[in-house]
């Protein structure tokens, strides 16, 4: 997943690139409009069952078919995406806040604090993310917050590394020397001079974290360890469609997966452009 989440392919300049950026922006606008407007226009009762219409193949009336209790798969996908996005954004923010705080503290303090913090980062990165996430939810589930905590506590590492590196490079700049010789305290230098400089990087990291968080949440939900089923996310939907899949009905499985992939690619592609804008020199063909 990492390749996509660090911003996808850096697109070549020219027509193809513009087209892709526009397509990605259009997808994201459509996704946001759908998750905000559809619940207002087409209320879905998660509990409502309509057994007369169960497991209809995709048709004009139900473009994505119906599930094993007769609910429209398209409508459920939009609702699932809404839950996935909401949890993803909150969890990504949590991870970014932790990462920025830790990275900024390490970068601004330097010395022994920095070394100690980096050892902690080493310890965290020695456990596979999903496994650590599974352990955390296993101990605190069920509920939404354990999932958010699971993502937040496992995904702050990259942000912390980026913010720390940025802090260290800012520290050697002249304006920081000027502030220090002007008598600014260590705290003031960190908060007024260093932190604003790393915020664009942290913001980019947060945006790129959203697909990662959604991915993590849907994996947990698929494993039956994530969100409660009355708040079905796309991962819950894929999990609950397993039975119908073995009977040959593919649509309740296929479409939620597509709903996971398409916004991920759109976010990655737009974030790639943003990254180039704030890091013009670090432009590279491959970001993994």
């Amino acid at each position, binding site marked *: 997943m*990492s*390749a996509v989440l660090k911003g996808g392919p850096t697109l070549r300049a020219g027509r193809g690139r513009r087209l892709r950026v526009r397509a990605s922006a259009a997808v994201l606008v459509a996704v946001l409009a759908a998750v905000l407007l559809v619940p207002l226009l087409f209320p879905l009762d998660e509990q409502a069952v309509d057994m007369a219409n169960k497991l209809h193949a995709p048709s004009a009336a139900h473009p994505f078919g119906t599930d094993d209790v007769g609910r429209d798969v398209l409508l459920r996908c939009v609702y699932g995406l809404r839950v996935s996005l909401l949890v993803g954004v909150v969890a990504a923010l949590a991870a970014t806040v932790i990462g920025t705080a830790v990275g900024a503290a390490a970068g601004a303090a330097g010395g022994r604090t920095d070394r100690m913090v980096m050892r902690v980062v*080493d*310890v965290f990165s020695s456990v596979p993310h999903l*496994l650590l996430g599974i*352990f955390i939810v296993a101990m605190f589930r069920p509920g939404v917050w354990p999932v958010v905590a699971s993502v937040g506590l496992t995904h702050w590492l990259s942000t912390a590394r980026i913010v720390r590196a940025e802090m260290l490079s800012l520290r050697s700049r002249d304006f920081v020397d000027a502030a220090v010789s002007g008598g600014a305290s260590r705290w003031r230098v960190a908060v007024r001079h260093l932190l604003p400089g790393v915020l664009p990087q942290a913001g980019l990291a947060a945006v790129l974290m959203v697909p990662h968080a959604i991915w993590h949440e849907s994996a947990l939900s698929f494993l039956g360890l994530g969100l409660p089923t009355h708040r079905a996310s796309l991962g819950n939907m894929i999990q609950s469609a397993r039975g119908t899949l073995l009977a040959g009905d593919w649509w309740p499985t296929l479409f939620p997966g597509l709903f996971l992939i398409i916004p991920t690619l759109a976010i990655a592609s737009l974030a790639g452009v943003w990254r180039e804008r704030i890091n013009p020199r670090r432009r590279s063909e491959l970001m993994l």
Partner: protein
Amino acid sequence: MLRLPTLRPWGRLPAGGWGSRLPKHSNAERARWGAVMRMVGRRLMAAVPILAAVTFGVFAVAAASPFDPVQQYAGAAGLSASQETLDQLRSNLDVDGPFTQRWWDWLTGALSGDLGDSTSLRQPVSQVIGERLGWSVLLCAVGFAFAVLVGTALGVAAARRKGGLLDRTVTSLAYTLEAAPPFWIGLLGIWLFAVRFDVLPAGGLTDSGSDIVTAGALLRHLALPALVLGLSQVPWFLLYVRQGVADALEEDAVRGARARGLAERTVLLQHALRSGLLPLLTLVGSRVPELITGALLVETVFSWPGIASVTVKAATATDFPLLAALTTLATVAVLGGNLLSDLLYGLADPRVALEEM
């Protein structure tokens, strides 16, 4: 001994393999191996505090959680049992001290091979792991081998003409595949191969009605999970090979090979691929976390009887002793993979200063 940089650092490798450009049994080679061994020793020493910290963290999280092993053990009877009985049970289960004490007891027990008993499977944790580890290693090895082969083939093909139709198709597919959750790919694979065409089993290890693992049945049951796990690892490998080979094609060494009139095939496979693949091989060990993540999902989808699927079961049943041991085992695997990476790196490229690693 002063080593001058050559124009073709890895263009042609000696028959004896990487790092053996030094004459056999020379003092310099012996010194190199000594440095490698010292690095391994340093890494093993560094792993000790990391493992201690990870296990400590695991016990701390459990202590902070609302989960109570006594209530879990007693089940419904725990609701009506007297406080005295519960306290007795607490001390019988060895969960009465502060968590630091339990962590220390667990750690000393683990060093002598006693990892406690799984609460959900009612058997020793070491036995659970022993029975399943082999299946997981088999699945991961086959899946990873598939990813390496397919990733290399497609990566070289894409790098040949960067920006061409093939390159754009392969790269887009790789990014899409990278964004697709492996469990979803696995389910679609089950639908296609097991339900629609009925050529491969949907999961498990043996045919229904049989408990004996035969080579033929194993192969058929392994094919689909290994394919899906492999597919989830292909994009990373492919994109790295593509980048490595494309960069290598720009190198003077490769341009020189072209200028000497060597066949395109020779240039690509003997020069560019070797040069482009070397940095990649050293990264292989660092893929262990992603492989474990993939195995957690793929083994669950296919009911593969490995340690990854049992991890998920342990989490569902809040089986703390099993989870703690499996988390530690995964950490050992990750650290081992990192060490392997550094080792390959040090052996492959004699210019690397091992003393700094």
